[in-house]
């Protein structure tokens, strides 16, 4: 039952391990001469001013929000799509209604001007 998942876990582990080994080899082979200038923040030679965590614009939150909503929508629709062959017509139309309600949400965001990149 869980056998394929063992392979998935192993492959994910290998996916971490191989780059880890490569970086370790790099660490062994490379020179290690740190100094203050080298390690300072890189901004094309200009002195860094102020703190790193600059104020970001709030629009990023809106994109994350819409993504979350549509992600959940997709998650709800995947079992429906798997069962598609066994569904009657009205069941398909219910899912269409589900999609239309979410599309209305997207249309609202569009009308509101949220989707403009400012």
């Amino acid at each position, binding site marked *: *039952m*869980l056998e394929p*998942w063992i392979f998935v876990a192993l492959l994910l582990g290998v996916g971490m391990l191989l780059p880890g080994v490569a970086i370790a080899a790099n660490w062994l082979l490379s020179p290690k001469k740190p100094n203050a200038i080298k390690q300072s923040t890189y901004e094309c030679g200009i002195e860094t001013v102020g703190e790193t*965590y600059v*104020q*970001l*614009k*709030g*629009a*990023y*939150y*809106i994109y*994350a*929000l*819409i*993504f*979350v*909503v549509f*992600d*959940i*929508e*997709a*998650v*709800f629709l*995947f*079992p*429906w*799509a*798997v*069962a*598609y062959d*066994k*569904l009657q017509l*009205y*069941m398909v139309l*219910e*899912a269409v*209604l*589900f999609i239309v*309600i*979410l599309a*209305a*949400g997207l249309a*609202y*965001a569009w009308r*509101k001007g*949220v989707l403009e990149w*400012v």
Partner: protein
Amino acid sequence: MTILQIIFLLTAFLTLLAALRVVTSPSMVHAALWLILALAGVAVVFILLNATFLAVVQVAVYIDAIAIMIIIVVMLTRGAVRGQGHTVSKTWWAAALSALVMLTGLLVMLLQAPVRGALPPTLPLDQEAFLERLGQALVDVNQYILPFEVASVLLVAAMVGAIIVAWPLFVRRGEEER
């Protein structure tokens, strides 16, 4: 002790450790990163429970979507509580006490439950067929059609509400800056 039990104990230990770091870490960014580890641990627990669909959903919804949204908001409100020294409120001991009382109550209840030592029955269906049934149940008028449609209304309501709450302020602020 079987290999499954060892995997479960390891996962549970790591998840609880990460969860403790979530509620104690002074840095919000670190707390969010520990939250991701805890959520991944819960996904592994779902796999151990043979709920593989929910495990993948856990990663898709929580780690890819909600955690990223939380990190973005942490960055938007950065430094809000910094410099005041305390990550917990003055009455943290009361919180710890109520959590302990809750835990004791839950454990006492668990020990009296008749099913506590139950072992998993063999799965009656293969997972593919089960998923098909879940999909049918979600749109069947006699089963879960109401939660299914209400979920979409809820999501749209949350989206519209969040935009109304958060959006006008960005616009007004932009005008002020200009």
